[in-house]
């Protein structure tokens, strides 16, 4: 069914490539769109699809699959695009990729819509008198060249990007440095920098690899690995094996607001926001009662967890007291276990301590070397991903405010949208004399820039990507064009970067005519690490055909590290602020992430798994809270923090802590194509300036808000009907785990 294609040959001879990646549906819109209307047989109206000199495997009417890499999130899943008549029709998972295993998530599927988006930026734009006007690449490049004529003095020149990896990361690193600090700022509004710093302190590496499928029990503190996690497809595949193991794995999820992962837990435990660390320490204390675990901790740590007895923990966290010994007992009975921590515990002023306390559970349970590892060695460490954080953007923001930044090149990130109002990032951006952005669609940040450059879509571009925390060997994912450029003016960021580098360091880069040439030579240079026996050209062709460069490599054990008991210290209980009684949870939606995917209509129309709401923002509150506030579903609420307020309709959901209100992230764009603009609200904007004490990362879940009811009530745009109960019909039946013997079921392959 699947025919693999390669673009290598054709790329070398430009004509060929045009011929089969280019659009040949000459009938245009009419031929594609005509449905059941036209019932007559026509002659001489449409044109026949016609080729000049196609590859032998190209047959009209037969799809050809090309391997590439999905760039919708950072997990670098291998994908395949079905190409027919020069059009990409659909994206599938690439079975040769150990990350995706032939599977693909909804976010990945929708990547094709970004490529075909009707609101793609088609020409370079230059701001004149406050308005962006079309310009030429020549003009743009001459403006850009000015910014890279680096001298030792003068204001900083910054390249601000989202998380990057692979050869783009190498080129970014190669950009000349001008001042004391690095000029490449990597910003991720949903960064896991807190977890990375805690991991470094406790396990000696920033990224640990948790093997869900090797665990008998997964205890997850707000880690949405199935939904908006770091690598949802890989995690979901592990999860499937975990559930289908000889002894079915058990998932316990502890979080203040139900995530998709929580919705799949055997036991979902609601917890007061920010008290996850306390519960973790309570569990540690409980486990230490058993002699198997008593010697796993140093005496000062044992002393540190002593105060967290059942009553105290239950009082602080709101978790029922009897549940704590039961969870501890299951942790033991279903070993090996794996304790995961996600975004919720990180997003507080004491986020690092929360995370450390949770990580301590893994230490007590001695999961290192069983379910917890460090990833295999990457042969080319310079390609390792730069994951980004918030702290460096905050520093940059301060410098921008002081007028210390002379120019900024922005790629792959939208800080004007995703930074809270208190940072005044958009205002500070205006103080930067020259800022340029590479975008596919005009987003909020691009609207604030002087020069906006049309970017090729990820499905038109070449590239290499490396995922963080790979659990199965080591792979470099190859991104290649699945289609000829839709908009001739669009260019690859790599090409622009290379052109700038050629001016700055001509001796190193002048031999590469374009980014493709650079990438090819770099990949071919890596041949000895993968397949030294084949010819260069063949290696390149094989690489493109497979879409991945794979090295089977064993995971490495985590080093033993001594750490101080101070790391797990939990704060004293905060006093409740009467003016702002609720905690705001800006929930990360699996399909929207930080708002990057809001311009894709499939995802806008894909119901949120738990609320089934589409095309909107909403405020999730617990029915008991609603009762207390006298709020019904659809009542418009004003959610007010000390920084500002947003309005959203109330959605009553049982899966949330009654002291919290959750508003999803991703909507509320002011500019980002027709599908994202003016849909919903952006909760980023009202976040309080609270930062993790250790790392300086923004505390995402620490903002306190007041909820005010308005007189308005609007119907929800949701898939759910008048009831969310099964009404006694056997729709989703549930069995207790001991009532069923999975071993008797027909085994099947889980990819």
């Amino acid at each position: 069914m699947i025919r693999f294609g390669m673009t290598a040959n054709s790329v070398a001879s430009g004509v060929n490539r045009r011929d089969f990646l280019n659009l040949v549906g000459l009938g245009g819109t009419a031929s594609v769109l005509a449905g059941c209307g036209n019932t007559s047989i026509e002659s001489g109206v449409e044109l026949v699809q016609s080729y000049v000199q196609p590859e032998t495997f190209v047959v009209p009417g037969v799809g050809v699959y090309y391997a590439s890499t999905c760039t919708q999130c950072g997990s670098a899943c291998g994908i395949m695009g079905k190409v027919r008549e020069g059009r990409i029709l659909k994206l599938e998972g690439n079975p040769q990729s150990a990350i995706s295993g032939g599977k693909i998530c909804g976010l990945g599927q929708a990547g094709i819509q970004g490529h075909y988006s009707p609101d793609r930026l088609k020409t370079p734009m230059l701001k004149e008198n406050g308005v962006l006007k079309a310009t030429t690449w020549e003009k743009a490049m001459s403006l850009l060249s000015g910014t890279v004529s680096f001298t030792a003095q003068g204001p900083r020149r910054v390249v601000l990007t989202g998380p990057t990896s692979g050869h783009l990361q190498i080129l970014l690193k190669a950009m000349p440095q001008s001042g004391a600090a690095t000029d490449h700022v990597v910003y991720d509004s949903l960064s896991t920098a807190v977890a990375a710093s805690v991991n470094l302190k406790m396990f000696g590496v920033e990224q640990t690899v948790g093997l869900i499928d090797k665990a008998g029990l997964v205890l997850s503190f707000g880690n949405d690995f199935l939904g908006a996690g770091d690598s949802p497809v890989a995690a979901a595949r592990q999860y499937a094996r975990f559930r289908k193991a000889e002894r079915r794995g058990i998932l316990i999820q502890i979080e203040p607001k139900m995530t998709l992962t929580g919705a799949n837990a055997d036991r979902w435990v609601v917890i007061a926001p920010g008290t996850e660390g306390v519960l973790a320490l309570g569990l540690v204390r409980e486990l230490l009662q058993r002699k198997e675990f008593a010697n796993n901790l140093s005496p000062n740590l044992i002393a540190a967890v002593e105060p967290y007895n059942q009553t105290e923990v239950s009082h602080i966290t709101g978790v029922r007291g009897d549940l704590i010994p039961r969870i501890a007992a299951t942790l033991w009975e279903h070993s090996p276990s794996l304790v995961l921590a996600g975004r919720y515990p990180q997003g507080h002023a004491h986020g690092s301590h929360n995370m450390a306390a949770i990580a301590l559970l893994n230490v007590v349970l001695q999961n290192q070397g069983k379910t917890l590892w460090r990833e295999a060695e990457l042969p080319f460490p310079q390609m390792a991903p730069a994951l980004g954080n918030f702290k460096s953007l905050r520093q940059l923001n301060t410098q921008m405010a002081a007028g210390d930044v002379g120019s900024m090149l922005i790629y792959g990130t939208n800080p004007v949208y995703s930074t809270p109002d208190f940072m005044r990032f958009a205002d500070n951006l205006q103080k930067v004399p020259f800022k340029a952005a590479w975008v596919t669609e005009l987003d909020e940040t691009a609207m604030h820039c002087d020069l906006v450059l049309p970017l090729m879509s990820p499905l038109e571009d070449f590239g290499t990507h490396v995922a963080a925390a790979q659990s199965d060997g080591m792979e470099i994912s190859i991104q290649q064009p699945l289609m000829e450029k839709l908009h001739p003016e669009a260019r690859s960021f790599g090409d622009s970067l290379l052109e700038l580098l050629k001016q700055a360091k001509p001796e190193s880069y002048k031999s590469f005519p374009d980014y493709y040439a650079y990438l090819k030579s770099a990949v071919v240079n890596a041949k000895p690490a993968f397949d030294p026996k084949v010819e260069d050209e063949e290696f390149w062709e094989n690489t493109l055909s497979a879409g991945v460069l794979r090295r089977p490599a064993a995971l490495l054990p985590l080093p033993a590290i001594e750490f101080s008991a101070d790391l797990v210290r939990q704060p004293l209980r905060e006093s409740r602020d009467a003016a702002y009684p609720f905690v705001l949870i800006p929930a990360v939606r699996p399909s929207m992430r930080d708002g990057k995917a809001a311009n894709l209509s499939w995802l806008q129309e894909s119901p949120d798994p738990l609320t089934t709401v589409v095309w909107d923002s909403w405020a999730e509150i617990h029915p008991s809270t609603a009762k207390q506030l006298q709020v019904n579903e659809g009542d418009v609420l004003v959610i007010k923090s000390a920084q500002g307020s947003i309005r959203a309709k109330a959605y009553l959901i049982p899966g949330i802590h009654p002291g919290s209100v959750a508003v999803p992230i991703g909507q509320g764009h002011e500019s980002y194509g027709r599908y994202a603009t003016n849909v919903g609200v952006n909760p980023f904007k009202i976040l309080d300036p609270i930062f993790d004490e250790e790392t300086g990362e923004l505390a995402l879940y620490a903002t306190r808000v007041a909820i005010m009811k308005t007189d308005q009530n609007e119907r929800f745009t949701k898939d759910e009907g008048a009831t969310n109960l099964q009404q006694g019909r056997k729709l989703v039946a549930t069995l207790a785990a001991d009532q069923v013997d999975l071993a008797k079921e027909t085994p099947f392959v889980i990819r």
Partner: protein
Amino acid sequence: MSLDNLISNWSKLRVRRPQVDQYKDSPYKWAMVIDLDSCTGCNACTTACYAENNLPVVGKKRFLEGQAMHWLRIERYWGEGEESTQEFPEQGAAFLPMMCQQCESAPCEIVCPVGATHHTPDGLNSQVYNRCIGSRYCSANCPYKVRYFNWYNYPESAWPSPLELQLSPDVTVRSKGVMEKCTFCVQRLTEAKSKARTEKRNVQDGEVVTACAQACPTSAIHFGNIADSSSTVAKMWKAQQVELSADKQKKDMKHEKMPAASEVASGVGASVEAEKLRGYRVFEELRTYPSVVYLERIRSGEV
């Protein structure tokens, strides 16, 4: 068909309940197994369906008016009864991917005045867009409510250029006034069958899957040919003791006769097998004979 043919086949044209050995001599009977214990409700399948089948995005206003066009929807339930009992959903949410069940005795088929929906030889419930006149009787009579009507001329608005370039040429773009529904990706099946015929063989297990099954990250959706007893799906149906032509499965009758829990506890019925099989079909008792078997969700009660 010609008048002669119509008259000589008159008695075959009526929809009857499926026979036990209906697909004995037939090379194909497409069916599904959906494991609700693996399904995480992530919506990868629904998006794959949009991509594969040229489904229009209807936009906020029309979605609000209940005019969404998702052939495959993921339902989320908080409870089984008529009243919600728990303060917090301690066992998470219950997700159910619901699409056309390709009933063997489909309520929609008998009522369509023009035969736009009919039963194919390989056991699918077809929908022929160009034949449909839009009486919506099929949708009215569908117990699962999985049929979606083109209330507007979506080709006019759903794919502003160049989004229309994504449309699959193998799937008709539906215009105003016709009904549509999940087809089990019939375009893929047709292609696979054609290829197999050229190679003088039958379609093999795993050679063709629907877009949803292909995308599903947890492999919760299994698609295959139950006329081929060696296929995974046929084995799963068999292992779950689900009979295509039964409106009540033997195993369920057995369980009804099982002693009550109190008797088991007191040792009276201890000899009866306590373990249950997970396979069931939704609304089987309505005698629709669906082709989709769901496997019950499992929740551990240990914590």
